C-alpha cells in the first residue's frame, strides 16, 4: 500500500511518540520574524535554554516594518516596533541565527523569502510562528504555522509535539478559464469545503490544473490552505519544483544536487497512496472569485449576486446577516459596482514577481481611478529588484500606483499601512476578517491581483476580463 508525501515526511521526521500520544517531530527549517519570536526568546531566557541547531533557523522582518521608504529609517517612529526589531536582531546575534535584515538585500515576507532563497525544499518539515507557513508546501514540504510557545520548542529542541493529520487529496482537473488564477482556485476550494472543512487535514493539491501551475502559483494555492482550516497544504514535487530550486542561494549544488533531486522525487506521494478523503473539482467551473463577507469562505463569482439571508440555510443565516451588516452590502444585489477606496497588491499570497508581471502587462498605459489609494508592495527585496530591472515599477507608478518597500503591509494592520474608518479595500491578501487591515470598521474584499488592479482602474469592484479585455492567447 502506497504512502502519501505527508506520511513519508512525517515518518522520516518522527523522533518518538510522547506519553500523551503525540509525535515528537523533527523540524528541518524554522523561520522566525519580529512579531512572534521575541516572546519565545524571553521564555527561553526564563528557562535557561539555548538554541539547539541555530543553522536550521533563519530570520527576517516583515510584519511591522514600514513599507514607505522614509519610514524605514531607524529607529522606527513606533518605539515598540523598534524594540521588537532590536530584540530579534540581538537574539539572532547572540545565538548565531542568520538574519535577512532590511539592509541585507534579502529581506522580505518570510513566506516569499524561504522559497526564493532555496531554503524551502521538498521533503522538509518547516515551521514558522505564522499561519501562512503552509505556503512552503508548494515545493512539497510539510509546512505549518505554530504559536510562540512552539517557536520556543523548535528553537530549543528543533522539534515539536504534534498529532498527525489526515490527508485529503483535492484534484483540480482541466484548464482554468481566462482571467482565472491560482487565487480563484483556492477561494473556490474554500467556498466549496468551508473555512473549517480542512480542520484535522493536510491538503494535497493535485490534478492537471495544479500540475500546470508555476511554482509561484502553487505558493498562492498552498498559502491559503489555512483559510480552509487545513494547517498544511502541499503539492507533490515535480520538474517545475526542481527547475525552480536550481541555482538558488541555499539549494544544493554539484553532486549534492543530483542526490537531492533523487530524494525529492522519492518523497512524492505514491500512485497507490491511500487518502482519508478525495475531492475532485472541474477547473472549468471556477469563476474569477472574490469574497463578499468577513471570512474567506464567503466567496462568490464576480457575476453572482451577494447571498441573501433568506436564501441560505437557517444555520448560516445569523452569520450572513452579521457579515452583510459589517460589509454594508445588500443581500441579493450584485457586488460589481461597489466603490473601492483602497487597493492592495501584495502579501505572502500574491506579491511575487509573476504576480507583478501579470498585473503590469494589464495596467500599462491605464490610470488608477480618481480618489483611489493603490498600493503595490513587492514581497521581498529580491522581488523588488527583479521587478525594477524589468521596469515594472515605472509601469505601476505611471499608472498611479504607489510602489513600496517589501513587507506584510496592509494585510494585517500592524505597520503604518492601514485602512481608515470603513474604507473598502480590494486586496490580493488572504484574510477579510473584521478589522484585519487595522481599522475596526475597515472592509476587505479578497481577489486575484489582476482583479485588484481592475478595481483600482475602475474605482469599483468589477470583472477584470472586461476591464482588460482578457482573451485566451
Amino acid at each position, binding site marked *: 500500500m502506497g504512502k502519501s508525501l505527508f506520511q513519508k515526511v512525517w515518518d*522520516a*521526521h518522527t*523522533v518518538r511518540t*510522547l*506519553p*500523551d500520544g*503525540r509525535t*515528537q517531530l523533527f523540524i*528541518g527549517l524554522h523561520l522566525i520574524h519580529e*512579531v*512572534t519570536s*521575541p*516572546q519565545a526568546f524571553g521564555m527561553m531566557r526564563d528557562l535557561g535554554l539555548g538554541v539547539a541547531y541555530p*543553522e*536550521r533557523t533563519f530570520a527576517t522582518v516583515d510584519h*511591522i516594518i514600514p513599507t514607505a521608504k522614509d519610514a524605514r529609517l531607524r529607529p522606527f517612529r*513606533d518605539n*515598540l*516596533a523598534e*524594540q*521588537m526589531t532590536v530584540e530579534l536582531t540581538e537574539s539572532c546575534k547572540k545565538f548565531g541565527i542568520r538574519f535577512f535584515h532590511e539592509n541585507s538585500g534579502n529581506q522580505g515576507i518570510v513566506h516569499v523569502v524561504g522559497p526564493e532563497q532555496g*531554503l524551502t525544499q521538498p521533503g522538509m518539515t518547516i515551521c514558522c*510562528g*505564522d*499561519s501562512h507557513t503552509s505556503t512552503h508546501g508548494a515545493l512539497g514540504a510539510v509546512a505549518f*504555522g*505554530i*504559536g510562540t*510557545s*512552539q517557536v520556543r*520548542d523548535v528553537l*530549543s*529542541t*528543533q*522539534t*515539536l*509535539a504534534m498529532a498527525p493529520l489526515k490527508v485529503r487529496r483535492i484534484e483540480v482537473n482541466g484548464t482554468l478559464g481566462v482571467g482565472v488564477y491560482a487565487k480563484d482556485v483556492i477561494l473556490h476550494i474554500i467556498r466549496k469545503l468551508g*473555512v*473549517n472543512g480542512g*480542520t*484535522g487535514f493536510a491538503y494535497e493539491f493535485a490534478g492537471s490544473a495544479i500540475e500546470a501551475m508555476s511554482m509561484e502559483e502553487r505558493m498562492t494555492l498552498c498559502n491559503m490552505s*489555512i483559510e480552509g*482550516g487545513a494547517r498544511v497544504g502541499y503539492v507533490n514535487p515535480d520538474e517545475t519544483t526542481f527547475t525552480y530550486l536550481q541555482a538558488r542561494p541555499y*539549494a*544544493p549544488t554539484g553532486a549534492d544536487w543530483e542526490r537531492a533531486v533523487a*530524494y525529492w522525487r522519492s518523497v512524492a506521494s505514491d500512485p497507490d497512496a491511500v487518502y482519508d478523503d478525495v475531492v475532485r473539482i472541474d477547473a472549468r467551473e471556477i469563476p474569477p472569485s472574490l469574497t463578499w463577507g468577513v*471570512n474567506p469562505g464567503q466567496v462568490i463569482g464576480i457575476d453572482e449576486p451577494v447571498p441573501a439571508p433568506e436564501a441560505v440555510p437557517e*444555520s448560516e443565516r*445569523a*452569520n450572513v446577516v*452579521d457579515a452583510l451588516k459589517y460589509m454594508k452590502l445588500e443581500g441579493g444585489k450584485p457586488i460589481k459596482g461597489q466603490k473601492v477606496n483602497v487597493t492592495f497588491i501584495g502579501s505572502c499570497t500574491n506579491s511575487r514577481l509573476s504576480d507583478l508581471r501579470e498585473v503590469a502587462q494589464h495596467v500599462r498605459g491605464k490610470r488608477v481611478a480618481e480618489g483611489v489609494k493603490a498600493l503595490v508592495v513587492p514581497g521581498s527585496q529580491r522581488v523588488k529588484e527583479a521587478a525594477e530591472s524589468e521596469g515594472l515599477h515605472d509601469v505601476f507608478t505611471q499608472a498611479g500606483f504607489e510602489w513600496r518597500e517589501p513587507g506584510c503591509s496592509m494585510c494585517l*494592520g*500592524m505597520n503604518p499601512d492601514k485602512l481608515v474608518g470603513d474604507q473598502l479595500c480590494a486586496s490580493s491578501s488572504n*484574510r477579510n*476578517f*473584521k*478589522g*484585519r487591515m*487595522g481599522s*475596526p470598521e475597515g472592509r476587505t474584499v479578497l481577489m486575484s491581483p489582476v482583479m485588484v488592479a481592475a478595481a483600482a482602474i475602475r474605482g469599483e469592484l468589477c470583472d477584470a476580463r472586461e476591464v482588460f479585455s482578457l482573451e485566451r492567447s
Partner: protein
Amino acid sequence: MALAQIKQITGRGVYVPGDDIDTDQIVPARFLVSVTFDGLGKALFYDARFTRDGTPKEHPLNDPRFEGASILLGGQNFGCGSSREHAPQAFHKAGFRAIIAESFAEIFFGNATTLGIACVSLTRPEIEGLVRAIAENPALAITVDVEHLEVRAESQVHKCQLKPSARDALVRGEWDPIAQLLEAKDAVAQVKQRLPYTSW
C-alpha cells in the same frame, strides 16, 4: 518544571456568539506590537468591546453579570485565522481556564492547550442549553471535567469531545511539552543525522 494536573475546571460561564471567531477579533493586530504577552487581558475582543475612544460597547464581556467568568462558550471553528498565541494568552490573562465551543481551529487549539486552557467541544443544542441556563442565572457553576470528558451545570450533563492527546496532556500535567521534548536530545541528533538535508 512540574505542571498542574488539570482534571476539571469549575467556574462561571460567558457566551460570545458567532461562528468563525478569528484571532484578529480576539486580539486585534495592533496589540501584537510588544515584546511580551503582558497586559493582553485587556486587549481581549477589544474592537468588539470598545469604541475608538475606549467607551465600552454592548458585549458579553462588558456585562457586569458575567464578570469573573472563567469558562467561555462559543460557536464553530473558534479561534480560526492567525497563529498568534496572543489570543489564548489573552484568554488566560483575563482569567479563562476553559473554552466550550462546537469546534476549534487547529492552531488555536494547540496554542491554548499548551497554556493549560481546556478546549472542549459540545454540539450546538448542548451549548444553547448552557447559554440559556447562564442567561437565567449568570452565577451558575459550570464544570468542565477533562478527565471524564463531561460538562456539567446543575441538571445538564453533556459528554464532551476533546482530542485524546490533549486530554492526556492536561490530566497528566504535561500540557506544556517542553520538558519531554528536551529529554530526547540524542534521538533528535540521530534523526537529524539520518535526514538527507542540505547543510547550511
